């Protein structure tokens, strides 16, 4: 690692001034000459066939330019790895409610919307199956779970160990569908120039969108350029190409004009993915001294009829605790529903709710403190694989958090603290998230005026990536940050990892560090920068392939205090405390905010967020921000976030683990454990809504 000056400092966000003045342009705000607007028409049945679309009346309306349907839309090409959900308007099948069945294109957005509202679509509905259940007859074991983990794992003999365990916890937990709801709705504007396509799109990775569009439209390599300078949040919902971008490109090809497609908030609930509901069966066995002898985690989730999405819910149990007998299983059922996708900490977020709740139940059953239970079961190597950890500071996080939170004086008895109408309780849970890197390319250029330009197809979805990468590049180049310009969000910069899986900074910083080091080496050799500048390119594919086999994860501990209103069942959160061990934190200011944001989304997961599937219709009926509740300012009070100084030189050149997801992992369990401590009632289903709390108190 190089000596640093910029890394670790709280540099202000580079594009902050553009954002606070309204000058920053997001994908749906890029003006292209002569552009028109597309409005998506969604199916109103969950399964069946479109039998007729009567476009004539809509085409006769003022300003309407075209109505794209499966009858007239440009044909798309598919490859083996094509996301079938992107094959929009290619046939008459309806595979979920809310699927795009037409695109109305008009001169103005209001004309397009009015046309979409009036478009007459006739269906032949078929019986749909949208009810997720752990005893669904069509459950199956997928070949692997996301992104490429074994579906089932087994070490030792769990059944025998449970049969002879002194203490057993056997409980089922469930989590609902949750919707990412980044503040910026998905948008794209597409423009064709012959067989070249340019798309300004709201996404988490421009090269992955470029690749998808290149395949779908049968284009040559390099024919597609995707730009995404500013992206208004994603949380996974923009991690893969979404249908709006394909529709914009189709509309632009059809009308030979630039076409902008912006989804409405309501449309997002069916069209951009969501977190699958889960049902999780946990069996934990322990000796009388609270040593785990067995751990079994069976996770059920749903996918769609369009493609298989198998959430890695039980993955967390493969690495957290030292159980000599350890079994994990995943089962999936394909329903007539929109395809679930990534949402912040896919797998770990719901998985940790089950595992960390079950550990709390086990601590109670064993009569030991929940932190002590985790200390006693701390593994020396990854329990499932036997791989060594590159670094693991879970216990340090638990102890540091206990100190900051004031855990030592806690009375373990549930339901005994009362302040007027409020019951008060505290809870703890562990956090973890994989620390991975993926191949990326970058270019670093020295200019004759002594400044530098770094180009990488990174995406700043609000994480602070642009700022962190500037700090990293500056330190690598031994230059002040003001002399370094990092350009991102342009697929012409070459292949790079998406902003996802907490892998962005780890992957991009690797490529940037490599390019910058190469550039310095070149500069050292040539002495002075030529007038045209000099550029070094880097590709980390081989470096990443050469990495040693290790278990690489960030860890953390979360503490929560809740107040439960005995009259109403309302749960309030006066305090959250999170301590994380996540490698190097590049920017204290943006990093802290990322972690607080994750924990706040964890409050939403624990107490508020629930997509309600209506079996009559096959959609999430609460598909707007009035009825799908995300936390507001008033739901958040004191959130104390800190990290321990962790140096792990077996990760990547800069030593980062990624912090985008770990903040939400464990929050819901810490809150549920605190609600138990407050009330004496264990909530095994999220969210812990007032109606459920009140019913449990009755």
């Amino acid at each position, binding site marked *: 690692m190089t000596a640093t000056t910029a890394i670790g400092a709280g540099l202000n966000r580079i594009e902050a001034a553009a954002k606070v003045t309204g000058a920053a342009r997001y994908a749906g705000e890029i003006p292209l000459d002569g552009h028109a607007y597309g409005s998506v028409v969604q199916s109103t049945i969950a399964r069946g066939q479109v039998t007729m679309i009567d476009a004539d009346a809509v085409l006769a309306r003022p300003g309407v330019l075209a109505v794209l349907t499966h009858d007239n839309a440009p044909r798309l090409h598919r490859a083996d790895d094509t996301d079938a959900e992107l094959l929009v308007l290619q046939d008459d099948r309806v595979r979920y409610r809310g699927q795009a069945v037409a695109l109305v294109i008009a001169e103005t957005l209001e004309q397009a919307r009015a046309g979409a509202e009036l478009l007459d679509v006739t269906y032949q509905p078929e019986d749909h199956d949208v009810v997720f259940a752990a005893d669904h007859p069509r459950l199956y074991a997928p070949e692997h779970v996301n992104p490429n983990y074994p579906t089932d794992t087994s070490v030792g003999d769990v059944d025998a160990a449970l049969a002879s365990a002194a203490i057993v916890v056997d409980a089922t937990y469930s989590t609902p569908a949750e919707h990412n709801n980044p503040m910026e709705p998905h948008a794209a504007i597409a423009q064709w120039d012959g067989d070249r396509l340019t798309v300004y799109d709201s996404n988490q990775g421009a090269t992955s969108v470029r690749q998808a569009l290149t395949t779908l439209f049968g284009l040559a390599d390099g024919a597609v350029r995707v730009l995404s300078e500013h992206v208004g949040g994603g949380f996974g919902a923009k991690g893969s190409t979404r249908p709006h971008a394909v529709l914009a490109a189709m509309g632009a090809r059809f009308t030979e004009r630039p076409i902008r497609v912006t989804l409405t908030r309501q449309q997002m609930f069916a069209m951009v993915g969501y977190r699958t509901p889960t049902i999780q069966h946990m069996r934990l066995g322990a000796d009388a001294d609270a040593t785990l002898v067995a751990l079994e985690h069976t996770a059920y989730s749903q996918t769609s009829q369009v493609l298989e999405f198998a959430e890695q819910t039980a993955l967390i149990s493969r690495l957290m605790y030292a159980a000599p007998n350890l079994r994990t299983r995943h089962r999936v059922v394909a329903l007539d529903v929109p395809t679930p996708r990534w949402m912040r900490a896919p797998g770990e977020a719901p998985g940790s709710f089950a595992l960390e709740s079950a550990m709390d139940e086990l601590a109670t059953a064993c009569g030991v403190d929940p932190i002590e239970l985790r200390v006693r079961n701390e593994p020396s190597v990854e329990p499932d694989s036997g791989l060594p950890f590159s670094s693991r500071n879970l216990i340090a996080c638990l102890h540091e958090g206990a100190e900051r939170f004031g855990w030592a004086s806690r009375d373990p008895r549930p339901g005994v603290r009362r302040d007027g109408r409020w019951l008060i309780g505290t809870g703890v849970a562990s956090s973890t998230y994989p620390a991975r890197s993926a191949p990326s390319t970058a270019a670093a250029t020295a200019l004759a005026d002594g400044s530098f330009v770094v180009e990488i197809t990174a995406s700043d979805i609000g994480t602070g990536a642009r700022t962190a990468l500037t700090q990293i590049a500056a330190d690598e180049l031994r230059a002040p940050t003001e002399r370094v310009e990092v350009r991102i969000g342009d697929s012409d910069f070459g292949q790079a990892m998406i902003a996802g899986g907490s892998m962005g900074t780890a992957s991009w910083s690797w490529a940037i560090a490599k390019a910058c080091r190469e550039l310095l080496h070149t500069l050292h050799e040539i002495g002075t920068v030529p007038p045209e500048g000099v550029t070094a390119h880097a590709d980390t594919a081989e470096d990443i392939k050469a990495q040693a086999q290790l278990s690489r994860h960030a860890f953390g501990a979360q503490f929560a205090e809740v107040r439960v209103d005995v*009259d109403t069942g309302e749960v309030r959160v006066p305090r959250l405390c999170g301590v994380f061990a996540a490698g190097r934190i590049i920017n204290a200011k943006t990093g802290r905010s990322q972690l607080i944001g994750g924990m706040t989304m964890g409050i939403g997961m624990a107490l508020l967020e629930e997509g309600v599937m209506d079996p009559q219709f096959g959609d999430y*009926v609460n598909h707007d921000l009035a009825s799908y509740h995300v936390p*507001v300012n008033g739901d958040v009070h004191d959130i104390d976030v800190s990290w321990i100084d962790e140096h792990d030189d077996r990760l990547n050149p800069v030593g980062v683990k990624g912090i985008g997801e770990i903040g939400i992992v464990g929050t819901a369990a810490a809150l549920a454990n605190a609600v138990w401590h407050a009330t004496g009632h264990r909530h095994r289903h999220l969210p812990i809504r007032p109606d459920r709390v009140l019913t449990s108190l009755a």
Partner: protein
Amino acid sequence: MRQFGYERPEYAADAVALAERPEVRYLAGGTNLVDLMKLGVETPDLLVDVSALPYEFVQEDLDGLVRIGAGVRNSDLAAHALIRSRYPVLAQAVLAGASGQLRNMATVGGNLLQRTRCVYFQDVSKPCNKRMPGSGCPARKGDHHNLAILGASDQCIATNPSDMAVALTALDAVVHVQDHAGPHEVPLAELYRLPGSDPQRETTLAPGALITAVDLPTLPFARRSRYRKARERASYSFAIGSVAAALDVEGDVVRDVRLAFGAVAPVPWRARTAEAALVGGPVNEEAFRAAAEAELAAAEPLRDNAYKVPLITNLVVRTLAELAAGS
């Protein structure tokens, strides 16, 4: 949205004349109507903007009666000194609703006529007896955890979403209306209709009727009143249950009481059974609980909303106890 006309008359009589056809809607703050038009739930062919009408006043007459113009913004109402001191339940209820931005736009008249937030009513791709009479009520089988336990019918279990109207109902407010027959007054309790077999008819107002003002009776003991709202997040969400209460105690006896519930019925629910049980009775939690239970004996909870019975009971007991204690 579809094509429609727009007028902004300066006289109430002109507004009423324009609005007699069923396809016309009055536009006040627009916070509910504009949303419903975007959703395709409301499809007027003419909007009559009433913001030029002279109804932005709060005044007190010599008898102490307070009259609130229908055009008064919710923010201004909640901040008004007269309202805060004499009818704290009303100021609290208004502040408990929506957000600052919406309260700045929404008017008293518009708030009284806001439509239910039932998700089926708001989604034109689904049946709804209120929106499309005879099409059915999917909420009975579907998501009804925040729908009615009182006053509902086979046809509709929607709830009235207003906080303000619950307080006004408790305060025995009287609504001034102007319609083709001229100006007249309607007690708020008679403004709203239960759904019965025709849930599309929510009020007793004649077509084109314009709410011009709301009167608050003197009700001196309303100085000791409060609004308590339970909701799924700390702010900016509709109630799952609310109670507006005013209590008049003499010694250890309830001399008078006003009690209304929100988010439990298609209308702001005046709890007259509970009031009758309380008046003349003791001032203690047992009596409060018994009164609430008497009122809620008529409740007909569905699969997922039975929690509202203990919720409202608890809110009644706590709110009355706090009022009795003067806290």
